[in-house]
């Protein structure tokens, strides 16, 4: 310590000197520009190039948007209004709005039914996506598939109700039997119970086809973006259980089951979806019993479910492999049998790890539902390629029509991937 201090020196400044402001080039917008856009020669060239391309893009696209014509009844009328200027013909969206969303021949008076289903879909999905919502809402989620079927396809209310009763009966039988006979026997019992009720339900529905019935819509008439939504939601929900089963089978120690699952998964992953849709279109019907005539959409749902099931199985297998061995051993040491250990210990953790991957597969699958247009189903892309661009008044409005389709898919897929990122942060229980 020195002996110089405030008492021994002549002057001590008691107030703090305000720091002088940074030089102008090191502050505010200029600093940001210098650091982020012009930090070096290469960077400056890149920036100028980017601005150039951006400007060209905006100059090219803006007038197209700004001059967009609404409310005409054909491309010729649009061209007349535009009179040589560049401009979009957005009237096609107005005039063909219903075709794009509901397909070409969904009865026009019944459009409220799919709209209502679409709104209810959010109510049904909400408790699955956000688990802070009251758990009672899950009851509605359970009812929703039956309700949605009834709303979209119409027919008597007996069909969905008996389907629901059958499912409940099967579940009850399963829980009762599981306590006494174990998992496998209970599963068989549950399936048998449900099947019996469904069979009775089929008889009942055939006996009273007009009880509380909506106008029935044939599956051929369901199309447009609605078809993409139906295929997407149905196939994703069905393929998750299939994927879990295949992943467990592939991880199993039983060589025959494992071999079957490996071959199945690798085969499905090795071929394009379009060939599987060909199978659904021209081949699958041969493998059904002769008198049953399964609808094209059912065959397509089967093949898409198998397809995405194989991909989801690989994602879940990754999750299973990522779990430490100790978790499996802990399950064994607690004396849990295979089904219990999987349900209570392994799968909850493995599925949590797999969620981002599953969401990726789901987004990919939803995009791939547009492929059904190739086997001449009129989904959104099919409706645009077929009836809309094929009609005399709208040939050539492909930018507007496909741009709208792209926008619809973008909004939904981007939304799902943002949700998945949020969920990942939410589920991160480790400390980083």
């Amino acid at each position, binding site marked *: 310590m020195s002996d110089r201090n405030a008492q021994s020196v002549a002057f001590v400044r008691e107030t703090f000197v305000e720091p002088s402001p940074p030089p102008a080039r090191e502050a505010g917008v200029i600093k940001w520009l210098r*650091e*982020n*856009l012009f*930090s070096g020669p*290469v*960077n400056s060239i*890149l*920036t100028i190039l*980017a*601005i150039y*391309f*951006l400007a060209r893009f905006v100059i090219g696209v803006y007038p197209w948007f700004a001059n967009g014509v609404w409310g005409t009844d054909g491309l010729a009328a649009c061209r007349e209004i535009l009179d040589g200027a560049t401009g979009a013909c957005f009237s096609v969206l107005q005039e063909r709005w219903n075709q794009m969303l509901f397909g070409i021949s969904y009865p026009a008076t019944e459009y409220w039914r799919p709209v209502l289903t679409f709104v209810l879909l959010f109510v049904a999905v909400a408790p699955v996506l956000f688990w802070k919502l009251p758990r009672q809402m899950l009851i509605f989620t359970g009812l929703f598939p039956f309700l949605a079927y009834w709303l979209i396809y119409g027919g008597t209310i007996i069909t969905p109700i008996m389907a629901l009763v059958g499912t409940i009966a099967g579940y009850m039988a399963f829980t009762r039997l599981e306590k006494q006979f174990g998992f496998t026997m209970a599963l068989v019992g549950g399936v048998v119970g449900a099947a019996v009720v469904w069979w009775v339900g089929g008889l009942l529905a055939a006996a009273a086809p007009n009880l509380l019935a909506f106008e029935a819509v044939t599956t051929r008439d369901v199309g447009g973006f609605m078809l993409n939504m139906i295929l997407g939601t149905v196939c994703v929900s069905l393929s998750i259980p299939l994927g879990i089963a295949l992943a467990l089978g592939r991880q199993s*120690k*039983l*060589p*025959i*089951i494992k071999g*079957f699952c490996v071959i199945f998964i690798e*085969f499905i*992953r*090795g*071929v*394009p*979806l*379009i*060939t599987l849709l*060909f*199978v659904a279109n*021209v*081949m699958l*019907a*041969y*493998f*059904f*019993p*002769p008198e049953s005539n399964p609808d094209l959409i059912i065959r397509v749902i089967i093949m898409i479910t198998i397809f995405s099931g194989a991909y989801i199985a690989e994602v879940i297998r990754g999750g299973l492999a990522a779990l430490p061995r100790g978790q499996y051993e802990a399950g064994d040491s607690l004396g849990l049998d295979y089904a219990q250990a999987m349900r209570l210990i392994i799968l909850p953790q493995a599925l949590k790890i797999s969620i981002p991957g599953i969401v990726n597969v789901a*987004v990919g699958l939803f*995009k*791939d539902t*547009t*492929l059904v*247009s*190739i086997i001449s189903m009129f989904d959104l*892309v099919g409706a645009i*390629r077929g009836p809309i661009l094929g009609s005399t008044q709208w040939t*050539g409005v*492909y*930018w507007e029509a*496909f*741009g709208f*389709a*792209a926008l619809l*898919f*973008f909004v939904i*897929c*981007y939304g799902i*991937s943002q949700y998945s990122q949020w969920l990942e942060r939410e589920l991160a229980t480790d400390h980083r």
Partner: protein
Amino acid sequence: MSTLSDTGAGPDRFRLSQLIYDTRYRSITFQVIAVIVLAYCLYQLYGNARQNFADADLNISWLFLYEPAGYDINQRPIEYDSQSTHLRASIVGAINTLIVAFLACVSATVIGVVAGVLRLSNNWLVSKLMSAYVEAFRNVPVLIWILIIFLAMSNAFPQPRAFRGDNPDAEMWLGMFAFTNRGVYIPAFENGAGSMVFWLVCLLSIVGVFAYRRYAKKLLFDTGKLLPMTWPSLAILIVPGIIAFFALGQPVGLESPELKGFNFQGGVHLRLSLLGLWFALAIYTGAFIAENVRAGIMAVSKGQTEAAAALGLRPGRIMNLVVLPQALRVIIPPLISQYLNITKNSSLAIAVGYMDITGTLGGITLNQTGRAIECVLLLMLFYLTVSLLISFFMNIYNNAMKLKER
């Protein structure tokens, strides 16, 4: 359970209940049940198929492959006319599939690496632009992109007749490239006498470049002597070719396309269906590869970049010499699956009329002969083989690149 008793017949003390409660036998029991269930299902499917075939008076036969196809294919990498067999049509289709898949794989890799690196750039504007590109392409179905790009090309390019006359509406680019709505015409090589020697020299100089680089690297590692890299490689690549070109009396010329009648003749004709599919697949998959590249680069720890910077390497060299080689190990496995995706997505060619194997075997041949099962099975077999081959070779490459721990 009665069916199972014969499988478990054996030791005296064996009780039937052991089949379920004893772990030694339980796995066998379950597998036997699984096999029986599977066999039953397959039998049912087979029975249904046989019944349906009998009802529809159909049979399985592969002879249709040797009948004349009777349809034309617009892009023929090998000899083909409408009198050729269905089998030959399928092979043409298969080659077309491989062509577009190869082109798209190469360009998607380039686009993806550039976009992935630029997305991590310090330049705010560029990185935001690249994010916009990646998100826009990842979140929209590839089928929509293929259709948009194909339709945009065929509507934006002028008709061949626009090139005609003294004051044409459209002009050829550099006098050699013609962009028309029937396709893009590019110059072709005209091989004269001695052209074989010229091409051989070119090939040898490419090999020579690799040999020189290998030698320089060995010299550097053995003795620490640093040879110049860029100029000698360039010289080896170009000089022998030029010498050979003039020494042989200019054996190779360029044949430019020319407007004759209603269309261009000469040169190489790239159809819009090929170009549209190729660009769409490349840009779409490029967005995915960009994400993989970004993840790979971010997986390289920051200390590596800082250490390289401390050694005085320039940013470009840091990327090339330190970050990318390490990131490559993370990038390659997802890259393999992107290549597989390109191959599989190339089957969407059918949407723009590109005659790949889905268009020939799975399209026209199937519709003409009505042999649905045979055609679809062959189609699946082809894609399965290609997928397995790609993953086989890429896995070899992956193993070669993997970090070798000693």
